[in-house]
């Protein structure tokens, strides 16, 4: 609560001013360094080095590559956590498989398969009340799958990729399309990435009381521009601006509110415009380690404002075969304009979804990767991670991941 108040004070503005001042000083130093380093390069040498540099920028991009990641997720509603009128316990088991293969010196294709098994207490409650199954996230139909693929062509100074996906669960179906291009500039000191994504979704509208309405549509368009900018031989910055427009049925159909003591469905606007600005900074520490800082500001026209800050350390054990990554993430969001735990009278727009409420979150985690290790006859990188997230409105999240990745 103190932090929320602080974010609106003059002291917070002072901190921002100091950050601007420090970053300006740091970048002035960088520009001075650049002026010292700029020189003339033989064009032939530069071209050859650009090629090798591209390979280094994404070490897996030129290899045929297989990767699998598994997730075990548990969300715990501690008594009256989140929305006190709803049990928000949830469990998810998820697996993602990614296969990438080169089909020529400039072309790669990829295939991505995802599967979920979901169990959510709030949805089971609706099912019990209505005497029918209501969504993909029930004991009866707990499955979700998502299959996608794409291709990327390397044009030299830039690459262009396209992708598509299809996802299905009991009460939700989605078609997605995307395009992405990365432009490499100034001997790869600057990478500019443009990305666009479109989803056309269909929702089976099953109410909290089990009533079934007509299928509804939901459209999501996202545009994103990102820059990775080298700062010094040991550090670089990443800035991302993202804009998302959503239209259509934006409610969760079985969510409800109490208005004047009467249980009613939540009602959301049918449009939402969302923007975020993200800045990350990564700095090499010693000969093998690194540290990363990130900050994101988010706002939308529903009145939600969010601040996210995170720090992650990359610690390579002296043996060189094990990478340990501890991380901490802070998150704060303000509530949507039409959010309230209870309503005195029915409103034109109304929700009691705690995910649109005002809360602060802290998460901690650690990931361990065994590099180029052989296990059961398969040589690759193996990783495990454990994470804990606490929301000050009483929701706790735990998740663990495990993965394997190897070129072939």
């Amino acid at each position: 609560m103190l932090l929320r108040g602080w974010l609106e004070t003059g002291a917070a503005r002072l901190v921002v001013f100091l950050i601007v001042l420090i970053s300006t000083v740091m970048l002035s130093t960088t520009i001075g360094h650049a002026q010292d380093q700029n020189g003339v390069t033989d064009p032939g040498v530069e071209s050859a080095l650009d090629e090798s540099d591209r390979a280094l920028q994404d070490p897996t991009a030129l290899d045929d590559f297989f990767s699998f990641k598994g997730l075990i997720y548990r969300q715990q509603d501690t008594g009256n956590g989140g929305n006190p009128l709803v049990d928000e316990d949830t469990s998810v088991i998820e697996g993602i498989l990614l296969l990438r293969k080169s089909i020529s010196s400039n072309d790669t294709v990829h295939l991505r398969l995802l599967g979920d098994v979901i169990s959510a207490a709030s949805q089971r409650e609706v099912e019990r009340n209505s005497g029918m199954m209501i969504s993909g996230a029930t004991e009866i139909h707990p499955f979700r799958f998502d299959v996608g693929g794409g291709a990327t062509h390397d044009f030299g100074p830039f690459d262009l990729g396209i992708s598509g996906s299809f996802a299905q669960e009991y009460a939700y179906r989605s078609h997605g399309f995307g395009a992405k291009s990365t432009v490499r500039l100034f001997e790869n000191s600057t990478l500019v990435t443009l990305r666009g994504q479109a989803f056309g979704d269909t929702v089976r509208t099953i109410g909290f009381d089990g009533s079934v309405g007509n299928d509804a549509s939901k459209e999501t368009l996202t545009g994103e521009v990102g820059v990775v900018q080298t700062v010094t031989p040991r550090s670089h910055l990443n800035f991302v601006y993202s804009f998302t427009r959503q239209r259509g049925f934006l409610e969760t159909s079985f969510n409800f509110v109490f208005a004047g003591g009467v249980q009613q469905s939540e009602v959301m606007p049918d449009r939402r415009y969302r923007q975020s600005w993200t800045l990350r900074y990564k700095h090499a520490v010693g000969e093998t380690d690194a540290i990363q800082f990130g900050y994101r500001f988010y706002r939308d026209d529903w009145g939600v404002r969010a601040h996210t800050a995170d720090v992650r350390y990359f610690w390579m054990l002296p043996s060189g075969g094990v990478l340990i990554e501890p991380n901490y993430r802070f998150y704060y969001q303000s509530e949507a304009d039409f959010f309230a735990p209870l309503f005195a009278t029915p409103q034109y727009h109304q929700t009691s979804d705690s995910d649109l409420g005002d809360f602060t979150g802290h998460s901690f985690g650690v990931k361990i990767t065994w590099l180029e290790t052989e296990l059961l006859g398969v040589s690759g990188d193996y990783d495990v991670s454990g994470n804990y997230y606490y929301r000050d409105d009483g929701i706790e999240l735990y998740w663990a991941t495990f993965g394997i990745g190897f070129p072939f």
Partner: protein
Amino acid sequence: MKRWSLFVFVWALSATGCSTVGFKAVRFNERQRLDDRVMTFDHDELEAEMIGHVLAPREGSVGGFSAIGAGGCGCF
């Protein structure tokens, strides 16, 4: 909050824009450390996607930190 938005935008612009002015800050023969695995942003793309799946339904915000977009999932 408009001031906050402006501050963040100016900060990000100055950080990336100013450094772009010094676009040849680091030459190809100085990049060994930057091209190391631990220095790549989002070197584990599947992990970034999974974290997006975990956090997106539980937070009212999206975008940045490699978790693009907001559609495609009924979530839970």
